[in-house]
Every structure is written in structure tokens, then in C-alpha cells.
């Protein structure tokens, strides 16, 4: 066990993957001597060479399209997209090629490509540096979409993603890069399947579903609610496609109430998917309609406004109040 930041845990996972499999290659902008803009690839080019850790031209479609060819050749590319908002030039290659080639070729070709994307807000960045584009990818069959919440899970999940024979969009919660935690790098990937959600805080009154950067916020919500005598169960999805609905369903059957929170805009987001699926599966167990706490349906705002955009402890607590029908709900919502 070593105490590592989430960023350091990702770095260690990449190092381990490069050591374990000569077919693993890293591609991205500034990932070599600089070590990536968030230093996630720090020292890897120095230790594994420019042939394994490739600084690329500044062209996202080029990076992903080249990774497709490398995968055709038997390589296992790990791509770094510098920031969430920069993935869109590569969107075509991801949804029309990467996601479909296994299906298109009737299973003859595999695309074991991992696309790492630092995502989400909360670091006071400028435009295109704080997006949460997960729903676009989760909507695309053929892609697996995952995100991590703490150093241990970041390490385990990234190694699982790289080992996966399907393409994986790997979202890294950039505002949690510096969160520290103990990391056991001998954890067997098979002990925690990549698409399994996990209950990070057990509870009995309300199920709170979160992922990525908001898992830490959700833990705080559970603590704060406990002060009010409310028992919140926090479920960390980890996998956003597929979503482990069975774990969410089991939780909601116990609690009868569901709050879902994500930073991404609400409309057409994963919260809607979870609310619909759980309503379908748990209709007679629900004591209240599922409620979403999300970013607003506006472009990600300027840094000085992002605290209003991002779901925080109070907004989520308010939603917990609402599904419990508590009268002192801040929003005045009465269903």
C-alpha cells in the first residue's frame, strides 16, 4: 500500500501497463517530456522511450484515427485527450470507427483502445476545459465508458480499461487529481469487474447515485444528512456504459427513494437514463419520483459562475429533502 494522489495512481497504473504488456503504447499531446498537462504521464517517456510514449501532433482525430490503425496492427493504444472539450474533433473517429469496428467486422477485429479524458469543472478553467461529455459516449453502442472517484479506484479501473478488449472512454475527474489515498497496486482486476457499481456509503433512507468528481461530494452529503438523522446510501457508478443497474435497483428496493447527481447538463443526460430505468424496474418500491441534481442546461459557465453550475452539498441535500417530502426543503419544491 502506498499513499498516492489520484493523478499519481493513474501514473502508476500506466507505468504498470507499459511494463506488463509491450503492445501498450501511449499517444497524446504533450505527454512526453512535459508529462501531460496534468502530469499524469510524468516520467513515462523517460523510462519507456518515445516509441512507447508518443508525443503527437496537435490533432485529436489524428490521434484517435492513428490508434485505430495501431489496434488493427495488434497494439493496445492508450490515448490522452488533453481536455474534455478537445475530444470533439475526434468524435467522428470515436463514434463512427472505434465504437463500431468490432461489430462491423463481425468480431474479427478488436479495438482495445483506452481514451483518457480529464473532465469536469471546479478548477477555474477557461472555456472548453470543464466539460462533462460522458452522455455523448454512453449513448454510443460499442464504447465502454468509465470514470473513477478515488486513487485506488483510478488505479484499478485504468488497468482494467487498458486490459479490456473493447474501446473504453476513461473519464478522469480533474478536480480530484490531487486527492490522496492509499493504493494497493496488487489488487486483482477480476475482483472488481470494470462495469460494477459499488456502494461507498451504506444507508437506508435514500439512494444517492453519483460518479466521478461528485462521489466525494456525495460522501459529504451522507455525512451531513446523518447529522439530520437521515441515512443516505451512496452508490458510485464507476461504469457509465454499461451502468450496473442491478446494484442501483437493489439499493432503491431497500430505500424507496432515489437521487441522482452529475455535473453534466440535465437534458438527455445519464440521470434521465437512470431515473427511467429504475422507475421501470422499481415502480412499486418507489416512495417518491426519482430526482436529478445536475448542471444546468447551459454551456459550462465562466469560472466565476461555476459554483452555481456545479451540484454541491446543499443542492444535493435539498434533493434528499425533496424525495423524503421534508417541508423545509430549500427549493420549496412540492412535487
Amino acid at each position, binding site marked *: 500500500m502506498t499513499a498516492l494522489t489520484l493523478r499519481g495512481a493513474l501514473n502508476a497504473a500506466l507505468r504498470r501497463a507499459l511494463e506488463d504488456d509491450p503492445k501498450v*503504447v501511449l499517444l497524446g499531446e504533450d505527454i512526453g517530456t512535459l508529462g501531460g498537462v496534468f502530469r499524469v504521464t510524468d516520467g513515462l517517456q523517460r523510462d519507456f522511450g518515445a*516509441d512507447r510514449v*508518443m508525443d*503527437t*501532433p496537435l*490533432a485529436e*482525430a*489524428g490521434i*484517435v*484515427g*492513428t*490508434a*485505430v*490503425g*495501431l*489496434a*488493427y*496492427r*495488434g*497494439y493496445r*493504444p492508450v490515448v490522452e485527450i488533453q481536455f474534455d472539450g478537445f475530444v470533439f*474533433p475526434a468524435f*467522428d*473517429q470515436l463514434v*463512427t*470507427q472505434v465504437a*463500431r*469496428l*468490432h*461489430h*462491423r*467486422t*463481425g*468480431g*474479427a*477485429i*478488436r479495438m482495445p483502445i483506452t481514451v483518457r479524458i480529464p473532465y469536469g469543472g471546479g478548477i477555474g478553467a477557461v472555456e472548453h476545459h470543464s466539460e462533462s461529455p460522458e452522455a455523448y459516449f454512453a449513448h454510443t*453502442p*460499442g464504447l*465502454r465508458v468509465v470514470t473513477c472517484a478515488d486513487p485506488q479506484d483510478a488505479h484499478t479501473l485504468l488497468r482494467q480499461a487498458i486490459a*479490456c*478488449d*473493447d474501446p473504453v472512454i476513461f473519464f478522469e475527474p480533474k478536480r480530484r487529481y490531487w486527492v490522496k489515498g492509499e493504493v494497493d497496486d496488487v489488487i486483482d482486476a477480476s475482483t472488481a469487474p470494470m*462495469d460494477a457499481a459499488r456502494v461507498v456509503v451504506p444507508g437506508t433512507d435514500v439512494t444517492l447515485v453519483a460518479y466521478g468528481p461528485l462521489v466525494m461530494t456525495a460522501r459529504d452529503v451522507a455525512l451531513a444528512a446523518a447529522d439530520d438523522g437521515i441515512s443516505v446510501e451512496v452508490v458510485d457508478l464507476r461504469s457509465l*456504459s*454499461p*451502468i*450496473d*443497474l*442491478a446494484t442501483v435497483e437493489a439499493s432503491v428496493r431497500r430505500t424507496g427513494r432515489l437521487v441522482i447527481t452529475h455535473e453534466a447538463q440535465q437534458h438527455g443526460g445519464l440521470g434521465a437514463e437512470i431515473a427511467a430505468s429504475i422507475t421501470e424496474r422499481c415502480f412499486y418500491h418507489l416512495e417518491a419520483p426519482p430526482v436529478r441534481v445536475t448542471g444546468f442546461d447551459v454551456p459550462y459557465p465562466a469560472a466565476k459562475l461555476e459554483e452555481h453550475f456545479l451540484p454541491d452539498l446543499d443542492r444535493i441535500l435539498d434533493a434528499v429533502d425533496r424525495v423524503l417530502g421534508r417541508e423545509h426543503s430549500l427549493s420549496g419544491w412540492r412535487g
Partner: protein
Amino acid sequence: MLRSELRPDVTPHTSPASAEHVAAPGDAVPRPTSPAPGPAPGPGAGPAPVQLLAPDGTRRTDPEHDPWVADLDDDRLVALYEDMVVVRRLDFEATALQRQGQLGLWPPLLGQEAAQVGSARALRPDDFVFSSYRENAVAWCRGVSTTDLVRVWKGTAATGWDPRAVGMATPTIIIGAQTLHATGYAIGCAKDGVDSVAVAYFGDGATSEGDVHEAMVFAASYRAPVVFFCQNNQWAISEPVGLQARRPVADRAPGYGIPSVRVDGNDVLAVTAVTRVALDRARTGGGPTFVEAVTYRRGPHTTSDDPTRYVDPAVHEQWVALDPIARVERYLASRGRLTDELTGAVTARADAAAAEMRAGCHGLEPPPPLSVFDHVYTTPTSWLERQRSQYAAYLAMFDEDSADGAAPGGARGTDARGGDR
């Protein structure tokens, strides 16, 4: 500024024979603009395409390229001739199958036989092809069966063949996407320390797509052993090449540090020569090459469009006179090789291949309904398993109804399985 002045210059880059017919766009295409800065595109623009066989069938001397085809004696030229005749026959057959309702769509390659056969036959089995959807002659040369050629177009599969079995990726419909895949594959070849080469086939229209430019940037940066083989067939559906490029498309590559060559795409010998030069450069560490095969798509873009709406008949006739097969016949005739026996044998071979394609096409059955869930992931997800089992149960309901006689014929079940239109 007048609206008309904002329109792109659409003058074709290369006249098939003379300049007279070049700047004669029909009413359906925008008029050329006033002179643009720099050299205007046109018949005189760019270096003359490499040509070894003149349209009249005479052999031209080219000290630079002759050594690259010195081994192509009459027998081997006959083999290329046979390939071209066969692929043209297959192309006609597939077009007919589409007209008869057997195929949903077909992208004819009529006129591009020399560009495709000449380049594809220059490849080694361990080279790898990344193509668009029109390279059916290339696929034939890679060993793809006639049935596999029509599988996608009949709609019974998303790909016709196993890419690894024939060294050719499943074609991309998205224009130009495959050029990046070829570049990545080539980088992989270099990493593996082998001298295999990746070849990207694309059209003149694709040279407007960002992917192609990014592919050239990446290929140049990593000195990737890739050949960019552009078939400039003059048209991107109805848009002439002049709307895509103000200079010959081969001129684009040198700006990326990639040597380029224009070749007469209707000259199978010249295409073979320049492709061999490019492959050799790639194999020996010289990096990428851009080949512009100047040719002409004589049919529609696909069986869905109507070229009479946008093609100048006079220009079309000039290209017909430059037929890639006829010029080889003229050359073989001048060598005394074009005997009735030869043409009879080649025709028989082409007819047999076409009959095989037709029979194979008729034999293609829609896959079972539940296979729609196959191969989305290497291991199925819980979501897909749920949807599969739910749909299986739904379909089974009709089978039961049918067995009970409640839904005579199981009409919807049959419908779900598709069937010939």
C-alpha cells in the same frame, strides 16, 4: 462582392485529351470565378502524369520508371489485363444485380480498373489495405471472394470479409477516415521492425476532409511506411475535383514533407511502376508517398445518382476513348498477343466470375434476428443480454402463436427476419 465571385473555381484539373472541353461546365455547375491568386488549375497545371502506355497502345520510354516494370513481360501484362476485364465484368454484374433489386446499392468503379488493379497487384500479401467503398477491384486482387464483394451491399452483413484473412480492412463509408487507420497501422509496422506497408485508398473528394490532412501530418512526423493512393476520378458524387482543390491534389502532399507523384490512372503499367516506387520507399525507411492516379469515374457515384445531371457528355466521351482496358488490348495486339484464343479465355473467366457472384448473391440469407446483438462488445454487457433475452422471448411468442394457428404464417416473425425485397 457579388455572390458569384464567392463561388469556388470548378475547372477540372486535367483534360482527358485537349483543353477545348475542359472549361465547359454545364449549367448545373457554377461558373469559374475570376483568376485566382497563384497558378490556376487546369490541364497545364502540375507535372504531367507518368505514362508508360499511351492511349493508342504504344509503349513510351521512361528511364525513371521503366526499370520498375522491367519484369512485366507480355505474360504478366496479360494477367493484369485479365484482372481488369474480370473486375469490369464483376462491376457490371453487381450493377445489374442492384438494378434487379438484389443489392441495395453498388458503387461502380467503371473506368478505374487500371488504377485499382495496377496498384493492388504491386502489393505483397503482408501489406495491408485501408480503403473506401469503391475499391472492389482492389478487394478482388486481395483475394476477396465474389460473394463477399456483394455481402455488404445486399445488407446481410456490415462487412464482407475477415480483414486479417485478406490483408484489407473493412471499407469505411465515412470519407477519408481510413487514411488515419493506414497511418497508424504503418506506424505499427515500423514499431514491429517489419517492412510491410499500409496503403490508404481514397478519392479526390476525401482530400478535402480533415482526416486526410491529419493523416499526412502524422505520416510525415513519424515517417510512416504508408502509401496514400488517391484515385482522382474527377468527381465527388456531383462535385467536380475543381471544387475540392485549386491545384492538383498531388500538390498538397509536398507541403507536409511527403513526396507525391501524378500518374495516368488509366495506364496499368504506369500505375504499377509508381506504386512500386512508393512501396519501395516505404519499405526502405523513406516514409510516406502520395500517389494521385488521374482517372475518371465513368458511371455514377453509386447506383443512386444520375450523372446525366452533372456530366458534360463531350468530356465523358473523351474519357471513354482513354479506356484503360482498350489501351492494353492495343498494346497486346501490337505484340501479336491479342488472339481470339486469349480474348475468349479471358471473357470466359470473367463470365464465370460474374456467374459465381450472381449465384453467391442469390444464396445470401439474412442472418438470424438475434445476431443483431452480436459483436457489439467482445463480451456482452448486462444491458444487451437483457435486451436480447427480452426480444428472444418476444419473437418466441409469435412462434407459439404460429404453432397454435393463432397467427397464421407467423407474418411478423417472417418480417423480422427480413428477406428479399
